[in-house]
């Protein structure tokens, strides 16, 4: 961790009005939760739908994408990364610092609203709120690391990330069951299933598969990003 790099990254992510824009989505989640909490009907299914689809399925990937790529890809894009790279700092330190900031921001903007929304919707029954919060924490960290790597590797990081998060995880995952094994969202759901009470959440991926994959992806993405940043070539945008 380097505090100066961390401070600059936070300012890049949340400076100007960007922090406010990022707040819009969690605010919508909370509004929906309040409306849903005041309706009658099966609260359990509704909570699983809101927290599973809206929060874990949409909010976390989009936030992870904006934050993960915003932490480094924007700097590479406008070329200002060279001023950072020319400082006597190891490249892996830059990556770990930026990743730590990205993970913290993702957690603050995704996991905290998820927990609050869970409490509003379902209280503390079945540990459902806690389960989904843990799910968003782990998948948020994995998404941040993955999208940070994409930001270093390609100039089309956002499009590539969207293609993975939406087309692969949502569209392909809906039709092909096997695709869900390679989905950060499903790994997060699997962890949530383990935390929640018996039968409260159903996940398609076993915990014994999900946890190692989460760890491997997060660590491998971080290491690969450090290696890639060490040999970064700045190319002009086409």
């Amino acid at each position, binding site marked *: 961790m380097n505090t100066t790099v961390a401070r600059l990254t936070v300012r890049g992510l949340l400076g100007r009005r960007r922090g406010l*824009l990022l707040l819009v*989505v969690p605010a*919508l989640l909370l509004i*929906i939760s309040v*409306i*849903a909490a005041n*309706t009658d*009907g*099966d609260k359990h*299914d*509704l909570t699983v*739908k*809101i927290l599973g*689809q*809206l929060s874990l*399925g*949409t*909010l976390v990937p*989009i936030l992870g*994408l*904006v934050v993960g*790529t*915003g932490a480094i*890809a*924007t700097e590479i*894009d406008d070329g200002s990364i060279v001023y950072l790279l020319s400082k006597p700092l190891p490249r892996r330190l830059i990556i770990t610092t930026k990743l730590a900031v990205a993970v913290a921001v993702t957690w603050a903007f995704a996991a905290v609203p998820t927990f609050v929304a869970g409490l509003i919707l379902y209280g503390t029954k079945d540990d459902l709120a806690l389960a989904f919060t843990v799910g968003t924490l782990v998948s948020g960290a994995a998404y941040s690391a993955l999208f940070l790597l994409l930001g270093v590797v390609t100039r*089309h*990081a*956002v*499009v590539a990330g*969207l*293609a993975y998060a*939406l*087309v692969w995880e*949502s*569209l392909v995952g809906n039709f092909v069951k096997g695709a869900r094994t390679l989905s950060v969202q499903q790994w997060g759901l699997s962890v949530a299933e383990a935390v929640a009470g018996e039968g409260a959440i159903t996940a398609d991926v076993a915990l014994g598969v999900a946890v190692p994959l989460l760890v491997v992806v997060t660590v491998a993405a971080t290491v690969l990003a450090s290696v890639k940043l060490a040999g970064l070539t700045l190319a002009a945008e*086409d």
Partner: protein
Amino acid sequence: MSLPPETRPAESGVIHDIGYRGYTGPRLGRGYATRSLFTQGLRAAYGLGRSGRSKVLPMLVLAVLTLPAVVIVALAIVQGRTELPLDYPAYPSALGLVVELFVAAQAPVLMSRDLRYSTVPLYFSRPITRGDYVRAKFGAMVVAMLLLMTAPMVVLYLGAVLGGMPFGHNTAHFLYGLAAAVLFALVYSAVGLLIAASTPRRGFGVAAIMGFLVVSQGIAVVVLGIAGGLDNPVPPESANWVGLLSPGWLVEGLVTQLFGLGSAADLHAPGTLGVTVFALEAAVVVAGSYGLLRRRYRSI
């Protein structure tokens, strides 16, 4: 080597007449410039005339949209069906995510790059006006999206007609599909271009457009669940109003009701009032975005 002025030979300071002449040929004017900008925008949306790497995504999206149509029509012919398993207007909605990805990725290509490299003032130093610029870009995006959605439908139509399926039915539904494609293209382009024009950074633009489309869709799904469509397969008639919450469902619901397609379980604009309101919202979205775009470029 520069000599002091008084030591230079006197005859070096000669102005040669190199015969400069003003341009007296035809001036092609505003319309030509606007058309050129439109063509350039349409080509840029598919990465034509740009590097190979910028062709990858649009061509991939086109392939992902068209290949299922080929498979569907081939299977339908082999199985000897008399009707396509997927109706024409339903096709763009079924692969809506891919269509959205295209607008999210390519709208910033049209708008953000000009802002970022400050080429917009250069355009305005030519005869075109700000209105022409917005018109050309908007037209380019709409036509690009229309081509994207029409290509698979043409494949379906040709396959169906050549495969001996009823000509009249297929032609009617193909035309419904074209109408749906026009509506999708207008609404998606309006939303995408407006967001793209607000940021000079391509990455933010892409994420913001996709974020808006996906989050609004997610909210619409959840509200539909709250309105009682979660446990029963056929949601109550009033639940269909959630279509107003997401651009994709707005068009889908409007088209379904307008042409009397699908079953009661499919999202549709509820009744005549629903059609009016849905159509009105679509018109407001398109016209409003267009107006805001024109306002955005007034002060550049």
